[in-house]
């Protein structure tokens, strides 16, 4: 077997399909966090919101059997937690990184508590089915059909949200206001932009997306819930926002890269290559750090990120 055949046997279409699935929760969470950070708010509690979204979404489906209701529940719970963290960061002007850690611990504990009390043992639910897009899903060339067009609904939505988010941020007046508030809140305020209202809105949106990210795990990808289901996934999502330089497309590239390395290490494991598993498990993290270092000067970082705004200061 020559080197190309070896690579070919490892990097199969299924690895790419797996990459897209793995990237989905990161995408939802990171796109939402991008909006919040663009407006100047850092929420480190994404993982806590994801856990609550994952549990409540799962429970709604478990109790009612309705996938739609599961997604809606996760959105509402995520939105409420976003509202809470917005109140803390915007109105009370609390230190953002740390309040996020608090929110994370809160979500981590409460989701486990609720799970133990309401369900207790691993249960499965009917998860989102894969939707085969007619014609496209049959494309054999390079496995394109398998990779892109045989995924579940939330995977499609996650990737569709990237151009929409990019458009909203770049081309709409709402997006302009978000960026203005994140770059120079005082100037924005002088131009009659309601800084607090914009920041509340982006953080609530960020919360809803984090909730959806959680639900995409428990309801769409896994079909199960367990304590600490996300295992710190939300923190990676925050890292991806920096990695993507606060642009949705950049965030997507980061999510895909991270997920690809993860899918690859699973594939290497599946094929039984002789790599110490500890090293392949740590690979995605090492690569993310290196990528962050090369992400450069981060000139696009919102200058008012983590800086609370107070009129007349």
């Amino acid at each position: 077997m020559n080197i190309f055949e070896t690579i070919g046997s490892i990097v199969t279409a299924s690895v790419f399909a797996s990459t897209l699935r793995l990237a989905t929760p990161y995408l939802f969470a990171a796109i939402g966090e991008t909006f919040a950070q663009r407006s100047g708010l850092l929420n480190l509690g994404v993982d806590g919101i994801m856990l609550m979204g994952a549990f409540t979404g799962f429970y709604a489906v478990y109790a009612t059997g309705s996938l739609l209701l599961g997604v809606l529940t996760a959105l509402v719970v995520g939105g409420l937690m976003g509202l809470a963290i917005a109140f803390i960061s915007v109105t009370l002007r609390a230190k953002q990184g740390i309040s996020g850690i608090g929110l994370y611990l809160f979500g981590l504990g409460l989701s486990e508590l609720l799970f133990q009390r309401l369900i207790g043992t691993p249960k499965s639910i009917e998860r989102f089915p894969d939707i085969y897009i007619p014609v496209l899903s049959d494309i054999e060339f390079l496995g394109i059909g398998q990779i892109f067009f045989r995924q579940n609904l939330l995977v499609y939505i996650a990737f569709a949200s990237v151009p929409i988010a990019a458009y909203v941020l770049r081309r709409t007046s709402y997006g302009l206001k978000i960026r203005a508030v994140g770059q120079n809140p005082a100037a924005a305020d002088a131009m009659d932009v309601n800084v607090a209202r914009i920041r509340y809105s982006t953080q609530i949106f960020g919360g809803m997306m984090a909730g959806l990210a959680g639900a995409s795990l428990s309801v769409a990808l896994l079909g199960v819930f367990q304590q600490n289901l996300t295992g710190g996934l939300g923190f990676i999502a925050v890292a991806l926002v920096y990695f993507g330089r606060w642009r949705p497309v950049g965030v997507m590239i980061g999510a895909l890269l991270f997920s690809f390395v993860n899918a690859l290490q699973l594939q290497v494991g599946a094929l039984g290559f002789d790599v110490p598993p500890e090293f392949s498990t740590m690979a995605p993290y090492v690569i993310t750090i290196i990528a962050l270092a090369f992400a450069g000067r981060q000139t696009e970082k919102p200058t008012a990120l983590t800086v609370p705004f107070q009129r007349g200061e």
Partner: protein
Amino acid sequence: MSISPATWARTALNRLLDASPLVIALLLAFMVASTLLLALNVSPLEGFASMFEGAFGNENSTAETFVKATPMLFVAIGICIAFRGGMTNVGGEGQMIMGAVAGTAVALAAGEPLGWLGIPLAIIAGFIAGALYGGLAGWLKAWFNVNEILSTIMLNAIAVQFMNFMLNGPMLDPTEAGVNQIPKTARILETIQLPRLSLPLPPGVADLFSLQNAELFARTRLHWGLVIAVLLAVVAYFLLWRTTVGYRIRAVGENERASRYAGISVRGHMVLSMMLAGGFAGLAGIIQVLGLQYRLQTDGSATGFTGNAGFNGIVVALFGGLNPLGAIPASAFFGGLLVGAQKMQRDLGVPAALITSINGLIVIFAVSSEYFRVWLTRRRRLAEAEAQQKAASASTAGVPS
């Protein structure tokens, strides 16, 4: 000018008022906890009584509270330095692990010939390894502008895997090889273990409190790590507020630009504060091994062996007002909370996850209470300024020009 009792009383009252938002934050968190307990059909009174008993109810539980507090205190000291230096270090977990791995390796290598000298050697190795690992994040921040929160989170995940690798291979207990392969090192020699700590009591005291032994905390797991941690907290306090290095670290944390103009090496001090933070976390790791577990062993969880002390240390530091001295009582408090939560789970079947979420709330309420503290201070300043103005105008009016 001598301080009048009235001024003294006012200062004391102000100090109390300054602390009051924190107390209120705590009360609020406990109110939420009570609500959750009620929802779980447990009387809050019973729940908190069980927690208190688990935390301070007897000699052994009090000792366990301090045992739990020790690594959190080490980490918290480092967090205080890092945060004061403007670095949000969330990497306590990974730094603890690196300290433990390096320290344990040294302790195992030191072996018999060096005797008790192995203890300081292992501790120094733990500090250095943690410092290098923390410094790595500082370096990435200072030179490559990599957000330290994110790099430390990644480094945590990497450290766990690194430890697993070391425990499965190079450091695996030879007696485990080929048997169960349970990833743990050999036990360190008794001469290199930190001794247990107990306090001799004056005669009669033990009888008075019906203690089982003449020495307080005999037959418990309390070890000298606690003493080391408390001493180092004092050292760190002096470092931060009584030395030039400490002043510069704080200056960089408070105002990067101004520090640069003042000729302070901003990058250098970023790395330094992260190295110190990592070093203290590394101490937490190696002391856990030398004082408690006597070998490095994974618990198979995502955190490796730390028991979340690296994370909880942040909570402790915050609650201690980012002051190493404040972290001492704060660590005892949170140690008690965590140990008590386990007791509540045993006695009343309340999942300990409840306390995880309450800890989160305490953090949120504590950082939010800063708003009220600032508000209180501002109001007081205004009042004082007004009073001064009045006094000034009164005196000018009184003195004929």
